[in-house]
């Protein structure tokens, strides 16, 4: 059995109070493993982004626990959670959120800079990661000069530059055409996924399902189906 990276137990999250209370996640439990690419799929409003946010230390659950490498993250202080996100999690946001006023290399270097690495060394490391995603020659251009697919790869480089254990991609193909989306996912699976990293992807794009090791279907805040793989497969 592969090593456990994330263990979520009975996660519950609601928004609003009283009559306005809406449950986004209702008692979800699952496990993710190093070396696997786990998809969480489902229609809009099914709670998949909320679930991923609780796993990645962005959104505090109302109840339930999230163990990452045997540490319950929601018992940490806010600053410790920020450190956890910085050191253990890499994010690729749906809109990428690249800084248009910084160069591509500076964008990629941000996690290292936040970790208080030397600026020049961070830029050097960022360029190495840009090389991994095939954009070394674009290092000194602002992100707005890049195509959407290239921006996606810059966001991936930024997410992995700090060598996180968990990589989280939110709707990675939402802004990409089918071919580019498949190429990106192929690239991620081939070059970014490794035995010390697990990749969690929120998507409803069935064209990229082929790259998943496991696919969990969510609906109405619950995991309703395992579309691919098995809970114990690993």
């Amino acid at each position: 059995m592969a090593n456990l990276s994330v263990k979520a137990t009975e996660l519950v999250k609601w928004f609003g109070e009283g009559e306005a209370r809406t449950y986004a996640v209702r008692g979800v439990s699952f496990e993710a493993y190093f070396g696997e690419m786990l998809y969480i799929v489902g229609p809009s409003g099914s709670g998949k982004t909320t679930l991923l946010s609780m796993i990645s230390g962005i959104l505090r659950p109302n109840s339930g626990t999230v163990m990452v490498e045997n540490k319950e993250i929601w018992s940490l202080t806010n600053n410790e959670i920020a450190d956890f996100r910085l050191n253990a999690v890499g994010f690729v946001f749906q809109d990428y959120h690249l800084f248009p006023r910084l160069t591509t290399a500076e964008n990629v270097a941000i996690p290292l800079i936040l970790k208080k690495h030397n600026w020049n060394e961070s830029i050097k490391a960022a360029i190495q990661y840009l090389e991994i995603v095939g954009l070394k020659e674009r290092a000194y251009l602002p992100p707005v000069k890049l195509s959407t697919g290239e921006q996606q790869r810059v966001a991936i480089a930024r997410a992995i530059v700090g060598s996180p254990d968990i990589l989280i991609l939110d709707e990675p193909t939402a802004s990409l055409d089918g071919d580019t989306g498949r190429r990106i996912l192929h690239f991620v699976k081939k070059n970014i996924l490794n035995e010390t990293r697990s990749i969690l992807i929120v998507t409803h794009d069935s064209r990229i399902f082929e790259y998943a090791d496991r696919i969990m279907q969510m609906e109405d805040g619950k995991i309703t189906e395992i579309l691919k793989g098995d809970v114990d497969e690993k």
Partner: protein
Amino acid sequence: MIGILRLAYKLLVNDKAKFAALLVGIAFAVFLMVQITSIFAGVLEKSSSTVINTGAKIWVIDPGVKTPVYSIPMPDYVLDVVRSINGVKHAVPLYSGGALVKLRSGVYQSVTVVGLDDTSLFGRPELIEGQIEDIYAENGFIAVKDQEFNKLENPGLGTVFELNDHRGVIVGIAKVAISGLFGIPTLYTTYSRAIQYIPSMRYTISYILVEPKSNEATAYIKREVKRMGYEALTSDEFIHKIINFYVYETGVGMNILIMTVISFIVGLSISAQTFYTFILENLEKFGALKAIGVKGRELIYMILFQTTFTSLTGYGLGVGLCSLLIATATLKVPDYTAKITYLNLGFAFIMVLIIAGISSYIGIRKVIKIEPFDIFRG
């Protein structure tokens, strides 16, 4: 921390349009604030020019005197009493009054005539041409070479003019530290000639200049003078009294205050609004940084750095611009009255800090409230 601040710096300055707008806003506000307060400082300094140029330690005046321009003459016995006070080293009379001069060209020009004590010439200006003894020569006057000198048609030694139908001769050209406020040239002569040439009331002593034997004697001299119903002020106290008059009794102070407040509001509105727009435009990016792992306090440092950097740069530009304008204006306009003092600069600096503080507060409030989850779910 340096890396985060460098990141904040790049985010700020690489947004050239916003950064320029911020700088223009703050520099403009600083320019206005420093300019207005400098003009005020210049006016106040010039209003005290007689006190500063004369250099007496203690001035005995009528309590009703609020500015040297309007002196209230004192009877001669006051001079005698002051001279008899213990602790007075010497006391001399000073005359100050206005007269009309008919120049060589036939043009009439108002002048201020300062009459120095005949014996000591205490309070005399520094001569740059001529000999001080020549002031005793018949009809001898010393002209002050300041910004108003050309109004006397740039006289030289021996230049003849008429003063209240009396003949006058320039026997010396002097320089003084500060010229007067009202753009009127100054002529120095002896006290006796001044009261002879210029129509006077019953009393002729405008001021009594006192040199105390020691600084400790000043308090006693002031008490004794007060017993006579007059006022003895140190030069600083007299200057302060003059400043108070202009600030509180002429409306100048209130107008300057209003203009300064308007400048502050203009600067605050431009910079706070621009900075707020800057924050709003980058709000999602700040949220993304928060999601990546930036702590709240680090975001606060970033914003504080950005506002402080912008404010200080804008402050420097504003002060530089103001200095340039004042320097240029002083060269081109002889009567231009403006003086940048440490107080002006300190005041503008505090105002800029307040602008930076308010701008930071607005930005920080917005950024602190943003939840990474809002960014994450788009």
